[in-house]
C-alpha cells in the first residue's frame, strides 16, 4: 500500500460518503467538480502523459453535452445505454478530425491550432441554428436506465458521476502502465528518440488525442444531464484555459493531480466569487482568479501534488538521491 494508493482510496471514500454530510447545494457542487475532474483527467492524458498541450478541450466537452441534448427524444427519457456512447463517440469523432489536422504541427502552433478548432465548434453552436444560439437548449427528459436509475434525482446523478470518475481513473491508470501508455510517456520526453527506435509516433498521438476527446465528451454528457441545459459557453476557450489550469495546479504527470486540481480550482473559484468574503468586489472575481493562476503556475512548479516532494527536498537537500531506484511516475 503506497502513500499514493492510500491517498486515492481516501479520496474516493470521502467522495462516497460526502452525500451523508452535505445538503443539496453541496451534492450539486461536488457533482459538478467530479465532472470537471473527468474533464481534467482527459486533458492529463494529453498534456501530462503525452506532452501535447491542447488549448481546445472545451470543444469536446461541449460537443458531448450538446449531443446529449440534441440526440435525446423530446417526450421521453432516452435510454442511457445508447445515448452515452453516442455522445462519447460524437466528441471522439471531432477529436479524431481535429487531431488529424493539428498533430502535424508542433509546439506553440499546436496550441494555437487546437484553440482555433475549438473556436470553430464554438461558433457553429453560437451562430448557427443547430446549436440554438446564445440562449442554449434545454434537455427535456433526462436519460434513464430502466426503472432502477433515474438521473433526474440528484443523488442518483451523484452516484453515477462518482462511478464514472472512478472508472475513468482506473482505466487511465491501467492504460498508462500498458505498452501504449509507456510509449506515450516516451513520446513526451523525446519524440525523436522514439522515432529513431522504430515507433511511428503520429498514430500514437492521434489515438491519445481521440481518446482524450472522447473522455471529455463523457464529462460533457454528464454535465448536460446534470443541469438539463446546455449553452455555447460550454465550448468557450475560458473553459479550455480553466482545465489547463486545473491540471497544472494539481500537478502534471500524475493522475491524482487532475483530481486534486479540479477540486482546488473549483474551491478557488468559489472563494473569489464569495460575497461573504469580498462583498461587492466579488463580481470582479476574475481578478483574484487571474492573480491566483499566475502565482500558482510560477510558485508551484510541480503542482499541489508535488508540494510534499518540494518541501522534502528543501529540508533534506539533494544528498542521498543519487543511485536510488526510480519510479515510473504516475
Amino acid at each position, binding site marked *: 500500500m503506497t502513500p499514493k494508493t492510500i491517498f486515492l482510496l481516501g479520496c474516493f471514500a470521502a467522495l462516497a460518503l460526502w452525500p451523508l454530510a452535505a445538503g443539496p447545494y453541496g451534492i450539486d457542487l461536488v457533482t459538478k467538480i467530479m465532472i470537471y475532474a473527468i474533464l481534467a483527467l482527459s486533458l492529463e492524458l494529453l498534456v501530462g502523459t503525452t506532452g501535447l498541450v491542447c488549448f481546445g478541450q472545451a470543444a469536446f466537452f461541449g460537443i458531448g453535452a450538446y449531443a446529449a441534448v440534441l440526440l435525446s427524444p423530446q417526450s421521453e427519457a432516452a435510454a442511457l445505454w445508447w445515448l452515452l456512447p453516442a455522445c462519447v463517440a460524437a466528441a471522439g469523432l471531432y477529436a479524431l478530425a481535429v487531431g488529424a489536422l493539428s498533430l502535424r504541427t508542433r509546439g506553440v502552433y499546436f496550441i494555437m491550432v487546437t484553440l482555433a478548432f475549438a473556436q470553430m465548434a464554438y461558433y457553429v453552436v453560437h451562430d448557427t441554428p443547430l446549436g440554438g444560439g446564445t440562449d442554449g437548449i434545454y434537455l427535456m427528459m433526462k436519460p434513464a436506465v430502466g426503472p432502477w436509475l433515474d438521473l433526474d434525482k440528484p443523488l442518483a446523478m451523484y452516484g453515477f458521476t462518482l462511478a464514472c470518475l472512478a472508472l475513468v481513473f482506473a482505466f487511465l491508470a491501467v492504460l498508462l502502465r*500498458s505498452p501504449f501508455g509507456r510509449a506515450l510517456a516516451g513520446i513526451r520526453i523525446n519524440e525523436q*528518440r522514439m*522515432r*529513431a527506435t522504430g515507433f511511428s509516433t503520429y498514430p500514437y498521438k492521434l489515438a491519445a488525442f481521440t481518446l482524450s476527446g472522447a473522455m471529455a465528451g463523457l464529462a460533457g454528457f454528464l454535465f448536460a444531464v446534470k443541469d438539463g441545459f446546455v449553452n455555447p459557453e460550454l465550448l468557450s476557450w475560458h473553459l479550455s484555459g480553466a482545465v489547463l489550469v486545473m491540471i497544472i495546479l494539481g500537478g502534471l504527470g500524475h493522475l491524482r493531480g487532475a483530481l486534486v486540481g479540479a477540486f482546488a480550482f473549483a474551491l478557488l473559484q468559489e472563494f473569489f466569487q464569495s460575497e461573504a468574503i469580498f462583498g461587492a468586489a466579488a463580481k470582479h472575481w476574475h481578478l483574484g482568479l487571474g492573480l491566483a493562476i499566475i502565482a500558482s503556475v510560477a510558485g508551484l512548479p510541480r503542482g499541489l501534488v508535488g508540494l510534499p516532494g518540494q518541501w522534502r527536498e528543501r529540508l533534506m537537500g539533494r544528498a542521498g538521491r543519487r543511485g536510488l531506484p526510480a519510479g515510473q511516475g504516475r
Partner: protein
Amino acid sequence: MGEILLRGRELTRRWGGVVAVDRVSIELERGQVHALIGTNGAGKSTLINLLSGEFPPSAGSVELLGQDVSAWPQPRRARAGLGRSYQRNTIFPSFTVLENCRLAAQARRQRAWAWWRDANACTDTLAAAREAAARAGLADQLQYQAGLLSHGQKRQLEIAMCLATAPQVLLLDEPLAGMGAEETERMLALLAGLKAGHAILLVEHDMDAVFRIADRLTVMVNGAVIASGSPGEVRLNADVQAAYLGGGHG
C-alpha cells in the same frame, strides 16, 4: 566482399542554395566498422540523417538489406533493422536504465492495442532489454535513474537503447564524445565486440580510436567524399593529409 547491409548511392541533400551532401556513395558491410571522418560542417551529420531517414534526400537512394528505403520514414527503417545513436544524449533521464532499454525493445513488438496489459509483464521485451544493457556494460546499473548516470554511462545507455531493437546496421554518431581515457577504452571494447553480426557506421573525431577500430575509412570535406578505403590507404592519401589530418601526421 562481405554482405552489404546498407548502401547509399549518390546521396545529395540541398538546403536552398547550399549543398550539404554532394553525391556521396557509401557501403556498410556486415562484420565491419566503417568510420566516417571529416571537418566540422563536412556533412557527416546530414549524411547520417539521410541514411537513417530523418529527412529525404534531394537525389540518390538508400538501400537497406537489399530494399530501396529512400521513401521510408525513419521509424519504418528502424523497424527494418537500422539502429541509430545520437551525438547528444537522447536517453530518457527520468526513467531507469532498464526502463530505457525496455521501451526501446518494445519497438519490436509494440502491442499498442493491449491496453490492459502491464508493459512490465512482457517477458521477451524485458529479456531483450536486459541483454542489450548487459552488452553495453550496464548490467549492474539497471535500477539507476538514467539522468543520474555519469556521462560515459549515459553514452553506454545510448548504445544499449540502439541494441535493444536487435538491429543489423548501427549508425553511431560520435559515441565517444566527451569521454575520458578509461571510458573510451570501455566503449572501444564494446564496439569491437559488436562488430560480428553488425554493420557499423562510426562518425568520430578521435583519430586514435578511429584508426584502432575502423576496417574502412571515408573522409568527407564540404559535403563530398575525398577519399575512401582502408585506414592505411587513406592515411597516405595526399588530399586527405592536406585537408584534414595535417601534413605531418604519420
